[in-house]
């Protein structure tokens, strides 16, 4: 299974790790999730992106990619066109994904439209950091190869695509810890940062925690430790990965319960660690023949 190009032991290891084959259906199901998530994200989870069309373009301060790419200023008409083009393109990609394919032009089209949607969403003074892995996924999935929903044959291109998504998901934690050390320094650990989060957007579940500052500081130590250690999940056996994903889901749910922040596109990407191909075994026989 090794490629023709090897650069000594490190190169061998990298190639084996990056292209470790997974059942093709795993990436097939993952694509289905990703393309189904986009209409949900745009229409239900974050409808406020579309509201930027009602805001004066004088408040539009384009991100670097928005200045480098020749993107029009988001007037109401531009926002509406991108909005519905993105929904239509992702639904089309969803239909293809259900048939086990993602044509490259279509997949890259969805990725670029989503990126433009992000420029519209995040060029008004605030960027969110919950979707690096998701954006990476949109760019690699068109190159994951054929992946029927019941096709459990091992695939190196599927393994590569999911590996890249996993790297993106882990990077979201690991580099968040690096950012804390860079901007907050070691003082972050004993700071009142979680108190700030709760004062600004705490729920009734979180408010009592404000009176127990040591618990918030302990949580900060915990967050820093788990974010710095997060790359471990990339190198352990599958069963450990599943357990760790369960732990991460619990973490995100408790963050949501306390400060109503949820990293939805990131949670979709955590599914890249799971044996999604097993869903194919639940398909009725007729659908299986179609897939």
């Amino acid at each position, binding site marked *: 299974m090794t*490629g023709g*190009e090897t650069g000594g032991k490190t190169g061998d290891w*990298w*190639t084996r790790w*990056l*292209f470790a*084959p997974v059942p093709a259906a795993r990436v097939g199901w993952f694509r289905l999730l990703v393309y189904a998530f986009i209409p949900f994200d745009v229409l239900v989870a974050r409808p*406020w992106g579309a*509201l*930027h069309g*009602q*805001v*004066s373009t*004088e*408040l539009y301060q384009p*991100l670097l*990619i928005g200045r480098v790419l020749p993107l029009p200023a988001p007037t109401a008409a531009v926002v509406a066109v991108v909005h519905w083009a993105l929904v239509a393109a992702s639904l089309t990609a969803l239909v293809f994904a259900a048939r086990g394919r993602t044509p490259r032009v279509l997949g890259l089209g969805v990725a670029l439209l989503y990126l433009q949607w*992000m420029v519209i969403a*995040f060029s*008004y*003074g*605030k960027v*969110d*950091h919950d*979707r*690096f892995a998701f954006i990476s996924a949109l760019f*690699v999935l068109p190159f994951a*190869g*054929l992946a029927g929903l019941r096709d459990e*044959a*091992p*695939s*190196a*291109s599927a393994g*590569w695509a999911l*590996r*890249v998504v996993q*790297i993106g998901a882990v*990077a*979201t934690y690991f*580099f*968040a810890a*690096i*950012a*804390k050390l*860079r*901007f*907050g*320094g070691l003082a*972050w650990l004993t*700071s*009142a*940062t979680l*108190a*700030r989060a709760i*004062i*600004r957007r705490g729920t009734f579940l979180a408010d009592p925690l*404000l009176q127990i*500052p*040591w618990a918030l500081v302990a949580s900060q130590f915990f967050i820093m430790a788990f974010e710095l250690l997060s790359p471990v999940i990339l190198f352990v056996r599958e069963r450990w990965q599943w357990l760790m994903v369960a732990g991460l889901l619990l973490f995100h749910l408790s963050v949501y319960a306390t400060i109503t922040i949820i990293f939805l596109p990131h949670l979709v990407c955590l599914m890249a660690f799971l044996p999604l191909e097993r869903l194919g075994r639940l398909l009725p026989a007729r659908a299986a023949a179609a897939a």
Partner: protein
Amino acid sequence: MNAEVGELTAGGRKARSAAAALLVGALAASALVGVDDWFPLAPFRMYATANSPNGEIAVVGLEVLEPGGDWRRVALRPSTVGVSVAEVEGQLPRLVDDPELIGLLADAHARLHPDAPSWEGVRLLRLAQPLRDGAPEGERTREVLAEWTAP
């Protein structure tokens, strides 16, 4: 089509390997020297700054003047003015320097809620909760940062 079923050609493998390496390199570099403007790259700086346990926690609020009424607080969120608290805070220096821009929030409100009374004035507030040893203590303070009234 053979390369499509998961068996990669040497070239396909090389390109994918380079793409993955580039991704990791770009992430690491942007984490160390990047800024938010580099989205979607790092730094991933949500809640990355350190607040002093004996400082104060500030948030920007919104007050508006309706015809024939008094100034009243309204929620600063996308459904009212098209932008969120964090977005207004991200552009705060600009908005304070040029209060005409705050008037744009009244325009956005009028477009989003055409049947509601139009705003004749908009104020940005700084609301701050003092902390002592990491816990809230004392009353919130309120300060007007900038004000716009319809000409």
